[in-house]
């Protein structure tokens, strides 16, 4: 075997089960690669090597028992995993990329973590992110930016940039992210890997530190769609701790070797091919759609007429919810606390000193949008338009099984390129926001490289709770292409 860190999730699981490789060896290989590459990439905020090796040894014992036939193989037994620092892992510091949580150690596991641990995963560490998932480049982290493994001068995207970079750099075969407005799909696209934003309600949000509660989803990164699909059923399903998680059967996501897409209808929305987008992005996405056509899919031009409102609607609803969600960081019970003599001064100074610029901007934006006299014009109206955006998708899915679109208007930009211009940064999310507003699933996967050798991705959006259809289409594409097998050259 060449390098253990090159193994996909499915290959690794097979090697672990057969005994070709131990979880300790695989975990150690990931940790070694992290040590080597981390100074350049900075994908992690907190590494948990001791916990990881302890979990790996435990997994090895269970693997041995299963090989003897005295137990079953848990579905992900021995698989190393990186976790975005927005999901709680009991006893491991959870910063959300913020100074205000620099010393917060959660006393409980997120439900998805609980399920993954029960399935046998090994936690390598907590990955870097834009503070409280507010950003599109991972530059808004109090712990410094993460670099794109394909070009260290470029951002990995955001807000789950650390997880995307870790998977792209083969530090981990898979990672968890969160997607509130594109924070899994956009970094997946920027880093040339596959990333799923599930249907809202599919994965429990318990233990996912809230940003925009009606939009937040936990997402999965891996290098192949088949790998993403392997983690999916473990994480899915109703959780009594999350009232918004749905009690629906989890579809079978086992993928066949067939690349036949006959009978599959894929919609191509006119509103997602706009002036000002990078020509290479448009060309690569159109080529990929051509490939899907050649596999038997019917390509149908469609319209999602309210797409242009997604950006303003999102930037009212998400900050409004965030303004309440982030009110708990008051310096009283946990996290960064500025000691002052007077109560209001503790609030003011702890929040003032603990939050970064972008977080403060969105709290103010959201507070304003909810204020008496402005609510109807901003938050109230945004909710109405959100309904129109949902209806766009409902109508589209009457005639198509999936919608294909670019993930972002451009490939990964340079560090610092948009930091002084929040609007330019917000525009990076223009194609990913609608899926969050509508609650539909979205799957991003690589479709080529632009002129500067930066990866470009495409996304498929599907009906509520039909992630299986997205997996099927994207997996067929990956059967006949090899973009997902390309890896960045790293020293």
């Amino acid at each position, binding site marked *: 075997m060449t390098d253990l860190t090159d193994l996909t999730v499915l290959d690794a699981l097979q090697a672990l089960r057969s005994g070709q490789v131990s979880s300790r060896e695989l975990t150690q290989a990931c940790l070694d690669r992290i040590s080597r590459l981390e100074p350049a990439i900075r994908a992690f905020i907190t590494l948990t090597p001791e916990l990881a090796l302890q979990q790996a040894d435990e997994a090895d014992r269970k693997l041995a028992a299963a090989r003897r036939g005295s137990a079953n193989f848990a579905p992900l037994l021995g698989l190393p995993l990186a976790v975005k620092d927005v*999901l*709680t892992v009991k006893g491991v510091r*959870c910063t*959300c990329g913020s100074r205000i*949580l620099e010393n*917060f150690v*959660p*006393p*409980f596991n*997120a439900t998805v973590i609980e399920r993954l641990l029960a399935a046998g995963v090994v936690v390598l560490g907590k990955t870097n992110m834009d503070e409280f998932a507010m950003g599109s480049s991972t530059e808004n982290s109090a712990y410094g930016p993460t670099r794109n493994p394909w070009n260290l001068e470029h951002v990995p995207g955001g807000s789950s940039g650390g997880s995307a970079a870790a998977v792209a750099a083969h530090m981990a075969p898979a990672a968890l992210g969160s997607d509130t407005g594109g924070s899994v799909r956009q970094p997946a696209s920027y880093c040339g890997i596959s990333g799923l934003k599930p249907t809202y309600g599919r994965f429990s*949000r*318990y*233990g*996912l*530190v*809230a940003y925009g*509660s*009606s939009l937040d989803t936990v997402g999965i990164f891996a290098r192949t769609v088949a790998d993403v699909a392997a983690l999916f059923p473990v994480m899915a399903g109703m959780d*009594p*701790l*999350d*009232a*918004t998680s749905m009690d629906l059967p989890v579809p079978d996501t086992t993928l066949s070797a067939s690349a036949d897409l006959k009978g599959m209808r894929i919609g191509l929305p006119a509103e997602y091919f706009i002036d000002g987008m990078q020509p290479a992005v448009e060309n690569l996405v159109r080529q990929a759609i051509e490939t899907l056509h050649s596999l038997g899919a019917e390509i149908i031009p469609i319209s999602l007429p309210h797409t242009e409102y997604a950006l303003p609607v999102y930037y009212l609803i998400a900050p*409004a*919810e965030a*303004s*309440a969600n*982030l*009110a*708990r*960081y*008051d310096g*009283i*019970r*946990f996290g960064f606390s500025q000691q002052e003599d007077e*109560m209001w001064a503790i*609030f003011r100074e702890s929040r003032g000193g603990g939050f970064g610029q972008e977080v403060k901007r969105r709290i103010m934006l959201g*507070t304003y949008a*909810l*204020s*008496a006299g402005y*609510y109807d014009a901003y*938050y109230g109206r945004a909710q109405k338009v959100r309904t129109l955006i949902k209806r766009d998708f409902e109508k589209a899915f009457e005639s198509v099984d999936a919608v294909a679109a670019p993930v972002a208007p451009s490939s990964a930009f340079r560090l610092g390129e948009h930091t002084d211009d929040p609007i330019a940064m917000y525009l990076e999310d223009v194609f990913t926001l609608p899926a969050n507003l509508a609650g539909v699933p979205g799957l991003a996967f690589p479709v080529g490289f632009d002129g500067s050798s930066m990866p470009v991705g495409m996304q498929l959006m599907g009906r509520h709770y039909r992630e299986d259809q997205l997996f099927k289409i994207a997996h067929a594409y990956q059967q006949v292409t090899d973009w997902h097998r390309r890896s960045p050259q790293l020293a």
Partner: protein
Amino acid sequence: MTSYEAVIGLETHIQLNTTTKIFCSCKADSWFDPPNTNICPVCTGLPGVLPVLNRAVVEKGVLLAAAMHSEIRPVSFFDRKNYFYPDLPKGYQISQYDMSLGKGGYMDLPMPQSGGVRHITITKLHLEEDAGKTKNEHGRRMIDFNRCGVPLVEMVTGPDLRTADEAAQYLIRLRQLLRWLGISEADMEKGHLRCDANVSIRPVGATYLNTKTEIKNVNSIDAVREAILKEIDRQTREVDAGNRIEAWTLEWDEDRGVLKKMRSKETEADYRYFREPDLLPLRLDDAWKGQILSGLPELPLERRARFMSEFGLPEYDADILTAERRLSEYFEAAVKAYGGDPKRVSNWMMNDILRMVNDRGISVTELKLTPVYLAEIIKLVDSGTVNTSTGKALVQKVDETGKAPAEIVQAEGLAKVSDDSAIRAVCQEVMAESPKEVAAFKGGKETLMGWFVGQVMKKMRGKADPALARSIMEELLKQ
């Protein structure tokens, strides 16, 4: 001088007596527990947690809404009410705003003095979570999060009350209702029932509303009455002196019995309400609602009215016998078993049963004397099998032993002696022993008759039929 009337509205917070909190599985009531012992990541608002609605809270809320004649919304919503305070861990309170569980409602409050009723409207009835408590101790501010997430119903009346007594009456009736429904302990001293009072005055006959003040921190019904009286007085003096009433928030100082100004309330706080995205709309389908309402008993005021109309009880009796649900049920069971005049049962209840339970500080359900036994005792007295005083003694004996009244009468030979010759012999004995009294009687002091009968009863340990004893005694003395 203008004469004024007060306009009063009450804002109540009712702590529901569920086992666990509204959005997590922590124990709800912490009255006997040390600070910060009934807490978890959810109710202390740690990052990443989510609320999950306790169905028992909804069920108790629905019972109250139904009892207050509120329209129960088939779909209601939770909202976030945003404000900063150290005892509010999430920085927002999960409450219900524009689409709450109950819409409207009223209570027709009986007025003890006038005998009429005052129609009190309900303008708000919603579910919400409680906040924690803060206090200052040794120069430090202490926070207890135990109360965070304790389920509350906030219920607000219209400006329909006119006197401090009416306000007190409303609270008495509300407390009675809450205990009757079994949804709250409704103990004001323990904060299970909290009340803020909005008070303004206006010339008698006016229909407009003047600027009101809000009185907070009143934790007994007497304190509410007293605080409102003082505030009406103060406002009357101010207006008579030509001053304007300002929209103050006042705090009742229990120890000194005075109102203190807490703050001016010039502008309304902006709570930036919006729908709670972490909870689904609260849907009460017909099946669930039906199941909840099947547990709704006849309400205290309805039962009170029925005891008057159906049983012919005076208002006084009906009021006492419906003060508490189990007492009213005991009474009604006894009436049914007795089959005769309910007023007769009422007399026994008020004279004997209530004294017994009050003396012992117990509930009627704890008595060994069942309603059926009570009915039997009354029937034994009615039939002349035992006399009244034996009947009263039986009440005690049955409750001590749990034995049937007839069994005790039999075993102890308590049945009244109606045998003419037995009584006649005792009468003769008494006369023989009391020559002076016999002489006095014969000399015209006929008031001694009672004394003679008493002596006979005493000798026969109360078993003699007193009427018979009297006529025999009379016959012998007048011979």
